[in-house]
């Protein structure tokens, strides 16, 4: 996802494409090195790693357990059956899990701005975004992806879908584009923290809140809320619209059928915005001087 993002920025400023290209390679390389370092450090406390990875799996699993508990009392929720909701849930949870694995540490930017340790990152000859993204890389987040994939797998086994090539292609497309959209939200949230230093929780409303929202069908929510996550923060493109295409159900807000194919474009658009936001934020950074 980091790659998609930087390419988005390249597209925005074609004049410096060549320099950007090498910076992209450099950034990805640095990201890999820092990630490898954190992997070694995490593995120093193996028991703790296993516990947190299992914990991550269970924690996210509780979300689906909650939905299953709801379905011990009802047959449909917002007009959708449990397997149908499992498809929405699995797609959203997996997409979010991927973004969280790659960029989930970005919410530490605010802390680094506050305690002045961001300065250390600025003087290194490595893109700051790559350093921040790889900061405290946590492999335990695989727990969330595993859980999402399991629910997705359950949905695909149980649901009786008339598969077409387009519907098959829709599945990887929606998970990857969805991860990119969530990743962009992480970066915008981190950029916002250059201004509001201890407001990292606002980001949670859009990331964790967003994935929770997408785990339920759009028919559950008020129209204005659905409008907001379609046109303002385009989360609806992560799972709702492509998944509803796969399920052959009606779209919210009377949207046309073809919008289900937009997620890759929406993802690129999100990354252009995220790349710009990050640059503006970083430029506005003033050190604490301590």
């Amino acid at each position, binding site marked *: 996802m980091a790659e998609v993002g930087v390419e988005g920025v390249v597209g925005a400023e074609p004049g410096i494409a060549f320099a950007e290209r090498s910076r992209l390679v450099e950034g990805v390389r640095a990201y890999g090195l820092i990630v490898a370092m954190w992997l070694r450090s995490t593995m120093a406390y193996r*028991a703790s790693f296993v516990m947190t990875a299992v914990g991550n799996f269970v924690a996210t699993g509780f979300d689906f357990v*909650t939905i299953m508990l*709801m379905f011990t009392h009802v047959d449909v929720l917002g007009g959708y059956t449990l397997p149908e909701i499992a498809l929405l849930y699995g797609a959203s949870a997996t997409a979010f899990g991927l973004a969280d694995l790659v960029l989930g540490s970005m919410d530490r930017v605010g802390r680094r701005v506050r305690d002045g340790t961001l300065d250390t990152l600025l003087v290194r000859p490595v893109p700051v975004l790559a350093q921040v993204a790889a900061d405290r890389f946590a492999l335990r987040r695989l727990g969330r992806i595993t859980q999402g994939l399991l629910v997705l797998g359950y949905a695909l086994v149980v649901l009786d879908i008339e598969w077409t090539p387009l519907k098959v292609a829709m599945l990887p497309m929606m998970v990857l584009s969805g991860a990119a959209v969530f990743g962009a939200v992480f970066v915008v949230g981190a950029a916002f923290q250059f201004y509001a230093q201890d*407001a990292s929780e606002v980001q*949670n409303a859009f990331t964790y*809140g967003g994935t929770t929202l997408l785990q339920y069908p759009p028919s559950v929510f008020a129209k204005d809320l659905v409008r907001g996550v379609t046109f303002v923060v385009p989360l609806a493109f992560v799972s709702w619209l492509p998944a509803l295409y796969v399920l052959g159900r009606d779209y919210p807000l009377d949207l046309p059928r073809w919008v289900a194919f937009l997620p890759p474009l929406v993802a690129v658009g999100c990354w252009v915005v995220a790349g710009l936001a990050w640059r503006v934020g970083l430029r506005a950074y003033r050190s604490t001087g301590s």
Partner: protein
Amino acid sequence: MRLYAVVAAGGFRRYATYRVATLAGVFTNTVFGFIMAYTYIALWDERPHLGGYDMSQALTYVWLGQALLMTCAMMGGGFEDELMERIRTGDIAVDLYRPADLQLWWMAGDLGRAAFHLLGRGIVPMVLGALAFDLALPGSPWTWLAFLVSVALGVVVSFAVRFLVALSAFWLMDGAGAMQIAWLAGLFFSGMLLPLNLFPGVLGDVARALPWSSLLQVPADVFLGTYAGWDLAGAYAFQAGWAVVLLLAGRLLQSVATRRVVVQGG
């Protein structure tokens, strides 16, 4: 006693410093409140009076959950990080020299924190929830008072659990895993994700008997007027019972742990 009051006031002031963070938290609690409220509406539309709650009681439950999430530290996020760090680095030895009781010291600070979070992160989401949805707010001031007592007991139970988790650092060194398991249990068994009344069969019985139900389920039911007279006394006794048992367990673990530190030479 005065010492602990000062420590509690310090705990309150410390969290009151983070104004932007508090605002950000209120925003997040409100967003989650809205998302959960709509899912509950879908659920109660399908099955009215589920779990003995009508629609507006169910919605009230959602917003109480958001209001108490930080107060009762259902997902952790209080003193335990800091205490664990002090145990890991050995700074705990300094704490043990102080002429103050370790458990009471941290509890006083945590009560101050909880008081701030109730005011700072509880009231605004609740008010916004009440503006957007039809909530079942108690008419009698006594119910509000009974609710506050139940919340206070819930905070003590929450503290007692987290103190035990923090002390595990004496043995585990890196307590991140234990802490995560604790907040998972807190989140699920407090009734934060779904009221425990909706948990089926044995799972429901067990969940309602565990200490975590003191953090949200019991205070919410007090708020919704489920308990009156002796039932209310019973609810309090349940919470206080767990508080006493867990605090005593913490005390026992503390004395075992401190002896270990002395044996190791601090």
